[in-house]
Every structure is written in structure tokens, then in C-alpha cells.
């Protein structure tokens, strides 16, 4: 009798010792002559419980966690491999509050399957979307994506269908699909999770994108900080090639598509699409002027669809289940689901995929369990280092692109970082400028110079020098950067700064409350 157990291979689980747990469990099983089949699955996204070990039982998978190498003997003593209750026992994984209340569409397989087992992928509805897309004319594939309401999940939220339509309409013998996997926003890790834990869904999404717009080659521009993802993607690409999902005449459809992974070199600005294309061409990642749009003149001057990992990984389920299935989730013009990443000062951190419309308060308290330190949550930053800081008074705002835009905030890539009441928001605002100064490409003046001047002005305000004059100057600078910068780097840096100034003037040494 063999017992099936799951130990994650996701790099967050590995960073907390999942490999050591794997070695200890296999060694202990050998010692006790217990026949275990160990599957290295992806992470379920409950990071405060990682390494999370699961055991397959008749009633479903049972979870134990967080497991350390010191727990192994105890776990074997209580016969955990039978799914028996005892230390670290969490019950059925699917019944855990965190997972039960999610709507996992893009992340349907993440944590369930072995990332590099293509048969496991197909058993769990993998390549269903591709098989349906093959039967359709390119225009109909684009229509399906347009009707689903899918918008760019990288942060800009541009309608994916419209972007694809532009590429499709631009006549050219050569076109490209570029996957933006330069996930540099602080507090985000959903792209990494897809690439490490379900790489075939990204490959499938890119093949469909290629068919839709008439591109036969794709690049995944992967950030340098993700070596594990690179290894998994390269293995997955080779497996897909062997099985005939990549290369010439895919599944006898007449379509050709191939792709490769390019590892970036560590510049935040290269997540901006035109700078990414420069970098991919082997140059310094300087932002390009728009127009021309990359959809018309992109990589090497050819029409290029640049899409984020999550956007592309969502396409297969849209093609499989249909546009209206996807569009039924969400609210207003924010259709479908968003993979939300909880990080920072919270008891429970990890990945939540929910339909648009959930409030920050639900996410922070219902899922996050409140702050880790037990202090009140002072502010959250949504959407990476360029997102606004939101105070408690705005925690009831529903997660929706337009509702966030109304309060000068962004949903961005769905990363949420919580700060407790010991945080100095003026220091955070200064750090936003410092980050911009370091990461600016330097092409436009508001971003290159404004970021450094901004730091100096904040120092003056904090130092009590001409506070009224300098506060006005800071607001003027913010306006100049928002309206005068070439791209979102300089154009959004004032968001965290001005929101901190509006909601936490005391931290700047300003007495009066202003909004």
C-alpha cells in the first residue's frame, strides 16, 4: 500500500524550507519502511502555513502545516500519512476558510497539480481552451476575449481584446507575442506563482494569443530575481514541444508557434512595455515615445502584443468556458476575477483569487486576519510602489478599477501591502521618491529630476522649514510629474506621496488635517 503525499516546490515554500522537509520525510519513510509516493505540487497560496504538506485520503486532501524538519518524527508517530488528526493537522485543504471563499479561475490548478506533469495538466482541463481556439477564425478568438471584458492585469487595465484587435488589423508577415513577466511591484507574486506552479497555462495562453493576432513567435521577458521560474518554464517549453503543442503545425491545425524565455537584468523600469521591448532588443531599457503603439510598431518595429502573465494565463479558461462565463464574475467594467496578493504586516498572507467587488476590509480582516503585530492597520498600499496609500476610512472601497480611480488609487497588479500604526508615512512617501530616483530611466525631466527634488522637499517639510510654502511646492511637483512624465514611473510616483500627505499630515509634522 502506497500513500500519496504532496510537498510544494513553489519558491516561497522553498524559502521556508520545503526541500528540507521533503528530504526529511523521504528519509524517515525509508527508515520506517513506509511506502510513500511524494508529489511536488505548487503552493496553495496559504503562505503562513508553508511548508504545507498534504495527504491524499478518500474524502479529499488533508493538510498539515507549517511543517519543519523538527516535526517529522512526531508526524510519522501520529501516522499523518493516513490523514489522521494530530499535531499540525488542519483538516481538508479545500475546506480551509482561506480557500473555500475564493473563486479560482486563473489559479484553478495552482497547488493541485505537479507543475511539470503535462498529463496532470490535461486531466485538469488543460489545453481545452487551445483545442477550442483552433476551431475558430482569428477574429472570433479576439471577439471572445473582447466580450469577456478581460483587461490588462499588469496594472494598466487596458482592454486585452482591443490590443489584440490592433495587432490583428496591422498587416505584417512577422508579429510577436511578448509576455511581460518583469513582476517588479513590491507585494506582488502572482506571476511568479503561475510560472512556477502552472507553467503550461501561460504557454497555452501565449499560443492562443499567437493564433488570434497572427504571430508565430513569443518571448517571455522574465525578471532576473526569478531563477526557479526560469528553470520551470524552460522545462515546460521543452515538454510542450515534445508533445506537439509548440512548433510547426500545432495539433495538426496548420498554426505554428514557438517561444523562448529571456531573463532580464534587474531594472524596475523594464516592466514598462516600451522599455521592456528596448531591453528585449538588447539595449538599455529606455522608455519609448508613444505613438507608435507597440501593437503597431513593437519589437524590432513589428506589431507586438505585450501582455502580462496573468492576462495571458486567463485566456485559456475564457476560451474553454466562454466569454460570458468569465464576464459573469466581477462588477461594472471590472469583469472576471483578480489574483490578489496579501503581504506586509498581516497575520495571514498569500494568494486570493476573487471576483472584482470585494472590499479591502474583507481582504485585510476576513482573509488576512488583521495585523501580524496586533496593532491597528494604519494604511495599505495597493498596486505596488506607485500605488496610493489608503487609510482605514477607505477600506470599504470595492476592488474595482473605476472605483479605485475615483479615489486617486490604482488596483494595479493586485498586490496589497499592510502597514501598522508604527509606520511613519512621511518616511514611506520619501522612500517613494527615492525609489523613483534610483529606478528612473532618465529620459524625461519630471521623473529624473522631480524624484530627487521631491526627497529634498519632504526633508524640508519634516525639518520644519517654510512648511506652507514647501507643502505647496510638493503638491505642484506632484502635479507636474503626473501630467508631464513620459510613462507611469514618474506619472504615478506622486500617488503614494500625495495620499500620504493628505491622510497622514501629522507624520510630516503638519498639524492641520487636509483633504
Amino acid at each position, binding site marked *: 500500500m502506497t500513500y500519496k503525499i504532496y510537498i510544494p516546490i513553489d*519558491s516561497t515554500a522553498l*524559502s521556508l524550507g520545503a526541500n528540507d522537509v521533503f528530504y526529511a520525510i523521504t528519509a524517515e519513510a525509508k527508515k520506517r519502511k513506509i511506502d510513500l509516493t511524494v508529489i511536488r505540487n505548487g503552493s496553495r497560496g496559504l503562505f*503562513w502555513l508553508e511548508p504545507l504538506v498534504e495527504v491524499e485520503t478518500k474524502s479529499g486532501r488533508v493538510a498539515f502545516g507549517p511543517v519543519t524538519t523538527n516535526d517529522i518524527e512526531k508526524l510519522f508517530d501520529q501516522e499523518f500519512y493516513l490523514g489522521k488528526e494530530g499535531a499540525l493537522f488542519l483538516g481538508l485543504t479545500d475546506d480551509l476558510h482561506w480557500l473555500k471563499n475564493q473563486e479560482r479561475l486563473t489559479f484553478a490548478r495552482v497547488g493541485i497539480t505537479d507543475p511539470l506533469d503535462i498529463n496532470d495538466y490535461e486531466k485538469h482541463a488543460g489545453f481545452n481552451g487551445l483545442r477550442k481556439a483552433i476551431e475558430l477564425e482569428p477574429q472570433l478568438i479576439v471577439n471572445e476575449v473582447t466580450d469577456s471584458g478581460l483587461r490588462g492585469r499588469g496594472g494598466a487595465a487596458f482592454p486585452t481584446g482591443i490590443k489584440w484587435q490592433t495587432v490583428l488589423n496591422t498587416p505584417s508577415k512577422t508579429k510577436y507575442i511578448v509576455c511581460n513577466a518583469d513582476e517588479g511591484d513590491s507585494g506582488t507574486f502572482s506571476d511568479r506563482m503561475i510560472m512556477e506552479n502552472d507553467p503550461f497555462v501561460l504557454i497555452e495562453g501565449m499560443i492562443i494569443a499567437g493564433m488570434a493576432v497572427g504571430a508565430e513567435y513569443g518571448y517571455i521577458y522574465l525578471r532576473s*530575481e526569478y531563477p*526557479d521560474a526560469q528553470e520551470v518554464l524552460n522545462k515546460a517549453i521543452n515538454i510542450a514541444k515534445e508533445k506537439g503543442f509548440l512548433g510547426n503545425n500545432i495539433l495538426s491545425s496548420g498554426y505554428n508557434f514557438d517561444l523562448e524565455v529571456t531573463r*532580464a537584468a534587474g531594472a524596475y523600469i523594464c516592466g514598462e512595455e516600451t522599455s521592456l521591448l528596448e531591453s528585449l532588443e538588447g539595449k538599455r531599457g529606455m522608455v519609448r515615445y508613444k505613438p507608435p503603439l507597440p501593437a503597431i510598431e513593437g519589437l524590432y518595429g513589428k506589431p507586438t502584443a505585450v501582455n502580462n502573465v496573468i492576462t495571458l494565463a486567463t485566456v485559456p479558461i475564457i476560451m474553454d468556458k466562454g466569454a460570458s462565463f468569465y464576464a459573469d464574475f466581477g462588477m461594472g467594467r471590472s469583469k472576471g476575477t483578480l489574483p490578489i*496578493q496579501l503581504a506586509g504586516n498581516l497575520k495571514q498572507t498569500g494568494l486570493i483569487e476573487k471576483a472584482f467587488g470585494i472590499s479591502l476590509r474583507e481582504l485585510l480582516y476576513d482573509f488576512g486576519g488583521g495585523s501580524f503585530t496586533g496593532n491597528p492597520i494604519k494604511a495599505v498600499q495597493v498596486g505596488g510602489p506607485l500605488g496610493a496609500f489608503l487609510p482605514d476610512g477607505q477600506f470599504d472601497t470595492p476592488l474595482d478599477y473605476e472605483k479605485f480611480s475615483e479615489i486617486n488609487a490604482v488596483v494595479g497588479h493586485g498586490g496589497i501591502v499592510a502597514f501598522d500604526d508604527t509606520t511613519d508615512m512621511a518616511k514611506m512617501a520619501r522612500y517613494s521618491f527615492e525609489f523613483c530616483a534610483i529606478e528612473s530611466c532618465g529620459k524625461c525631466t519630471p521623473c529624473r529630476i522631480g524624484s530627487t527634488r521631491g526627497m529634498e522637499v519632504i526633508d524640508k517639510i519634516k525639518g520644519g522649514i517654510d512648511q506652507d510654502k514647501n507643502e505647496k511646492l510638493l503638491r505642484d511637483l506632484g502635479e507636474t510629474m503626473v501630467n508631464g512624465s513620459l510613462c507611469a514611473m514618474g506619472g504615478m510616483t506622486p500617488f503614494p506621496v500625495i495620499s500620504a500627505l493628505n491622510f497622514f499630515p501629522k507624520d510630516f509634522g503638519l498639524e492641520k488635517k487636509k483633504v
Partner: protein
Amino acid sequence: MGSLLFTIILEPALQERIFYRFVALNHVSRWVLKALKTTAKKVLGVDYHETSKDGVITLEPVYCLGNCACSPSVMMNDKVIGRVTPEKIDNIIKAVKQS
């Protein structure tokens, strides 16, 4: 001749080093620790882009390792380590120095 070589090859390369964090020109050590400066600096006693006196570890800056749910994190060569403390960094450094 030397200055021509510098203008054509080295200077642009040095500029790229400033632009791209992961382009390394001066790594003389076997191990590279990527971390936010504050904690790692105290333990190693060096600044960014500097190598420890024994030539074993170089400290490089990094912002986000995609492990924000288990911060703070550091990266030793290609391995990410989550929820680090000064003690944990100290142990990691000791371990690589012995290897």
C-alpha cells in the same frame, strides 16, 4: 589606446551596470548575497557592491524577490530564503564561508 578602449567598451558597459542591477562586472567572490542593505550590512560589514574582506561574499541590492508574503527575504546566489532575522543571516553567512 587605453582611453579609447575605455570609451568604446568599458564605459558603456559600466553604464549598463548602473542601469541593470544584475549585470555584474566586479564579482570576485563565489557567493553573492542580495538583500536590502540595513540588516545584511550590519552582519557583513560591507556596503552595496562590496566584497567581504575574506573575498567570499559580495553584497548586492535587491528590492523585491517575489516573496513579499514571507518578508524579509534575502537571496544567496540563486536561492531565496524567507523570514530572515539577523541571526538567520549570520548562520547563512557562516555556512557558506565554511563550504
